[in-house]
């Protein structure tokens, strides 16, 4: 709704003037920390079980700490991947949400970097 209350010079002022609010912004919903927020595009089917389809846009917050059960953008052996984290006592698993993909166990031999935590997914329908 477009409110143009302040230009009215005659008559009773609009009762809505006191309730003017800024419009809904997706940025405000999805971006909690602007300096640390980055975006990525999903390629492939490995996370379809979590609702991440090929071509979806991910919102990534680098300031969040990795936790068991979070979906993260990771770097394993030089490639970006998006997977669910499973943190165990002495190892980390990267779990795909698609039966056709095997869980990846991160061992001492792999180089894993957690690049950021996925907070939202934006999909065009």
């Amino acid at each position, binding site marked *: 709704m477009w409110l143009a209350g302040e230009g009215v010079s005659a008559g009773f002022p609009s009762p809505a003037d006191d309730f003017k609010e800024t419009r809904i912004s997706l940025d405000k919903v999805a971006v909690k920390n602007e300096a640390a927020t980055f975006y*990525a*595009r*999903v*390629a492939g089917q490995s996370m379809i079980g979590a609702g991440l389809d090929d071509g979806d*846009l991910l919102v990534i917050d*680098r300031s969040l700490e990795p936790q068991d059960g979070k979906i993260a*953008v990771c770097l394993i052996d030089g490639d970006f991947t*998006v997977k669910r984290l499973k943190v165990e006592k002495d190892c980390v698993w990267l779990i795909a949400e698609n039966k056709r993909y095997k869980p990846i166990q991160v061992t001492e031999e792999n180089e894993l970097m957690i690049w950021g935590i996925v907070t939202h997914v934006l999909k065009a329908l």
Partner: protein
Amino acid sequence: MRKSVFLNVFGLVDCNNFYASCERIFQPSLEGKPIAILSNNDGCVIARSNEAKALGLPMGAPAHQYNSFFNQHNVKVFSSNYPLYGDMSRRVMDVLKQFTPLVEVYSIDEAFLQFEGFEHYDLEEYARQIRKRVRKWTGMPVSIGLGPSKALAKVANRVAKKFADRTGGIYVIDSEEKRIKALKWLAIGDVWGIGHRHNKRLVLRQVRTAFDFTQLSDAWVRKEMSVVGLRLKHDLLGKSSIPLEMIAAPKKAIATTRSFESLIDDYQELRERVSTFANLCAEKLRQQNSRCHALVVFARSNPFMPDLPQYRNSTMISLPFATNSSLTLSKTALHGLDLIYKSGISYKKAGVMVTGIVPEDAYQMTLFSYENPKHQALMQRIDYLHKRFGPHKIKIANQDLNRTYKMKQAHLSPRYTTDVRDVIRVR
């Protein structure tokens, strides 16, 4: 845990190999590999990763002469991606501002911080937190130097960087002993603000280190290096004399110049380029809320093709009033070009520079000649539309509507953070 003996503390935060690091954040497989960044138009090397420096690649190396070097040593070459670098710089600065409100953005990859009322903090630990958070949130590795003045923070930063293995990228000058040790280590030519000319003269006087410089008399420094040199000396002595500048001083001159990819023989084509350069200068003036009093136009042939007729000329035109109107500046630049243009020359480079820059609010109307006030409203509208729909959508009529000047950017990385079509892909 030690606390600083100095009440006022300054920090210098410097991004490590900033341009190369920006590229690595989005292509982490380049970690540890040599990277070179080329200037606008892919002309020469303007930034190198440590690995590229170690290979002996010089700063300013002309790219076309170094193609085989790049291939031979597997140097990953990038065209400058300023939208990416600018955005990453803003992110780093935003994180820094969470640690102290007193931040001076000194350059795209450096900021001075000032800490007031931090007497009870362990500043080294605080610096470690700053470094860690910048790295985690933005991916950018930084080095931090702390000291009782800006100049000493800069010295401490050099120590932090040079001995990164031992310092972990952080060094604090918090005692007289450390101050003197660092100054005796630092060559005079590497001191902040000591340029080539001063360096030569000081070395002739046996001033070889920053410490030697602090032993000169105030009178001599003042006489030979003006009050600027004197402030630097006191800063290095630990008496803060160079204040933090939180508001960037408007640039003294703004220039837009380009080497053309191919030679321009056609007068109309050259006019179109010059008009565009003037327009870009006007946009930059409006961005920093200032106006200019004079404009310089220059054009030249290619000196590296001695077989062709050689020509270079420039002219300066004073404006009757300070302006930042694209229309006025473009018209003036074209008038200037008419004055210097010589036919039968193949032009390789041209440019427009505006000078005599004053802040918008210092603008005074002159009595008899003034700009059509409609220009200002029109420029605001144009700037608004550019902001909304992207740059260079609106052109003035003497610019070619079909032509967008294409910089040579053969090695451009995606605009990962400023264009949604360019974001990273994750499997």
